[in-house]
């Protein structure tokens, strides 16, 4: 009953098909506005920060840990960078300090999760609130002025092949993470921890260490995303938390692509841009403000429900079948005190 989906890799690459059809539909619908290089360049650059944040969310998520503070971290990094520059520090100092702030917050999150044994969901939710408070303390709740420094804006807005260079940064980060997660032991360990922490521990994986590192990585990426945003769009008091849900949405959506069932780099990036394409196209048709939110949220729920549900159903059916076979084949387990009899009382 689940054999039909195998052809054309529709399961794994449904996002690509969807992307292609969105592009075709909007190109026909808005032939003068949509299929232009300006559209391509602006969508690519505008979503680069969200893409970096999505990758940041993804790393701890692979190990089964949520980082809900990533939006607040990025926001704080943005404001720190801007304030440092307006107070006369060099761009290099501003960039490094802002990224270090992100890493430090990640390390604190790691400490709370690994050492204090607070669930990551609660720990980072609390941290997000604490960071929002710190942000008000630092800024006095008034938006600082944008640094009028052309080198600073050039950091992300220099053109490379028509694209703003921030797109290149994002792709480099993605490539590095893809390598780290797919082709190094650390990445493998992280996936193993996400699959079964106890089995990982008993296979010699230092679960606490890698969990901690994954949170530091997500904090660092949030710092980088914050710097990129500051350079691209200037300071904002509230963009970070608003990007949290889209980041998670992209990662969950992405896990239905390329290697279904696994959070993966290119799936997340693809999801970001499929959604962006849809939103952009609709924005050309109508100018309502709520489109982005509605489209992202709706697409997330629909896609994960359909794809994830189907995968789970497939896996579950397979597992049940195996259990049944095992039950039949295996005489030795019939005498086991902990056999399934324990469940049907």
């Amino acid at each position, binding site marked *: 009953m689940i054999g039909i989906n195998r052809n054309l890799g529709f399961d794994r690459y449904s996002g690509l098909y969807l992307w292609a059809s969105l592009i075709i539909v909007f190109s026909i619908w808005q032939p003068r506005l949509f299929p232009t290089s300006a559209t391509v360049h602006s969508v690519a650059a505008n979503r680069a920060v969200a893409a970096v944040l999505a990758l940041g969310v993804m790393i701890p998520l692979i190990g089964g840990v949520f980082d809900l503070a990533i939006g607040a971290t990025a926001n704080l990094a943005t404001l720190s960078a801007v304030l440092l520059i307006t107070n006369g520090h060099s761009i290099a100092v501003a960039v490094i300090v802002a990224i270090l702030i992100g890493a430090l917050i990640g390390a604190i999150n790691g400490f709370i999760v690994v050492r204090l044994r607070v669930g990551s969901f609660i720990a980072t939710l609390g941290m997000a609130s604490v960071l929002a408070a710190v942000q008000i303390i630092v800024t006095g709740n008034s938006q600082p002025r944008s640094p009028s420094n052309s080198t600073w804006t050039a950091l992300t807005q220099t053109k490379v092949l028509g694209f703003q260079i921030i797109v290149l940064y994002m792709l480099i980060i993605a490539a590095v993470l893809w390598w780290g997660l797919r082709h190094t032991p650390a990445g*493998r360990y992280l996936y193993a921890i996400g699959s079964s922490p106890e089995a990982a521990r008993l296979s010699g994986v230092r679960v606490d260490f890698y969990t901690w590192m994954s949170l530091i990585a997500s904090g660092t990426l949030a710092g980088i995303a914050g710097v990129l945003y500051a350079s691209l769009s200037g300071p904002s008091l509230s963009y970070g938390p608003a990007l949290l849900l889209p980041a998670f949405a992209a990662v969950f959506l992405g896990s239905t692509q390329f290697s279904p069932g696994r959070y993966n780099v290119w799936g997340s990036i693809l999801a970001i841009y499929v959604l962006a394409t849809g939103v952009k196209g609709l924005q050309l048709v109508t100018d309502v403000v709520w489109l982005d939110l509605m489209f992202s949220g709706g697409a997330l729920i629909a896609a994960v429900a359909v794809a994830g549900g189907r995968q789970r159903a497939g896996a579950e059916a397979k597992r049940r079948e195996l259990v049944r076979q095992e039950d039949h084949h295996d005489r030795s387990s019939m005498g086991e005190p902990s056999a399934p*009899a324990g469940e049907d009382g």
Partner: protein
Amino acid sequence: MQAADMSTPGALGPSVSTSALRIESLTKTFVGGRALDGVELNIAPGEIHALLGENGSGKSTLIKVLAGYHRPDPGSLLQIGGLDLEVGSAHSSHALGARFVHQDLGLVESASISDNLAFGPGFPTKWGTIRSRRTRLRATAALEQMELDLDPGALIESLSPAQKTGVAVARALLADSVPDSGQPAGDVQLLVLDEPTARLPDSEVEHLLEIVRTVADRGIGVLYVTHRLDEVFQIAERASVLRDGVKVASEPVAGLTRDALLHHLLGAALEQPHRLNIADESSSAAGQPKATLSVDRLTSDVLTDVSFEVFPGEVVGVAGITGSGRDALCATIFGARARDEGTVHIRSEILPARRPDLAMSRDVAYVPAERKLQGCFLDLSARENISIANLRDFWRVPLLSRTKETAITKRWFERLGVRPREAIGQPLSSFSGGNQQKVVFGKWFQRVPVMFLLDEPTQGVDVGAKAELHSALFDAAQEGAAILMSSSDVDELVTVCDRVIVMRSGRIADTLHGDQINVHSITRSALGMAGDVVEPGSESANAVAS
């Protein structure tokens, strides 16, 4: 009022001579063979009937048939309270008045007694709101019926093990109507207790037996499954013994001796040893002075003062009933479980507590009993499962060598006969249990350990695969690895072990060598009747005594 009904069970049934449980020519065939073969069993109302049998004798299958989980072969007759059980229907089993208390009691530890008693039948409510006073009253009544002097508001976690079992029994016996059934929602006719004392300390057993007697006094037939022979004589009126799916005896306990019971349990044929002759290299290995593993006064929540050594090339088995500490020993040595005291040395290097990674760096391998939770990664591929503990071998800066990984996975698939052979990249969940276990072994073999710690190493593995795993283990032993294998499958221990450590109540009760290693003596010793089998003066026996 309900208590009054219960005390006159015969009045409810269609005839006065109704049995609580009547089984005739019950046969259950699985693909692998016959689990039950023409079993008959009769339990009168108010009778406590003990059911004994080795692991794999068919006890669990019998219970599952009664519970409606398994469908027996056609021609089997099953009656509960005089009415035919609709086979394979859990609903029918419940409606006819069969209740089950499993070893895992299924109580919510953090909730109160009265809540636990209400989870099954539902809370009494008014306009959707729980009527707490009625819930409490109902719980009080249920506890009183069981003669349990407990506060219904007490949390389950604050109770003693026997009290918990008592609450579980009370919950099973709660009168609950079965509203949507066409069948009469009869009273409880039969209570099945599956090894209720397996996890109880000795001091608690008496209390539990009291509870069981109270139930029987209400006219309910009790099927009491146990491993402990003492209890049979203390509580049961009759006892039945299953062996290899066949009922070998069903006798009044009054006329029964322990030896007769043991004879039924084990059968004469099993007493001759049929182990492989692998003692050759181990005897020469025993001459070497240096032990691979030496455990000194290891103590934890379930282990007390455990000391022993394992030498290179030796296969040492750990036997014992559930709860004897058998199932915790390997995990505690490896560091998967906490330990309170004692030291562990691997080749005279000390092994710290709770550090599986350090144990692995000392070339120790550990196969846990809970494969699905602790042993493997179901949603990672077989390839990744095999390489996870060996990633350093595949790390060629800057990439993990996929080619080498695949080649080595293929080699272990070949070597251990994992099926399907092409499925190297498939998630482990798509393999059968036996093949999953082979993959787990592949992971460890790849590391070439000097010490194997194995918990139920061939659980869920069919006979052929079992032999393949054993021979791979023998190869490792031949090359000098030491193997400590804990198993509830006594036959397996007899087949592969050079020496068997028998655990009882967290201590090493006996150490069996050579000819002593047979099903008979292992079982006797595990059940605490060792004196006539084991010669005193074996080194470990002395160590424990001191």
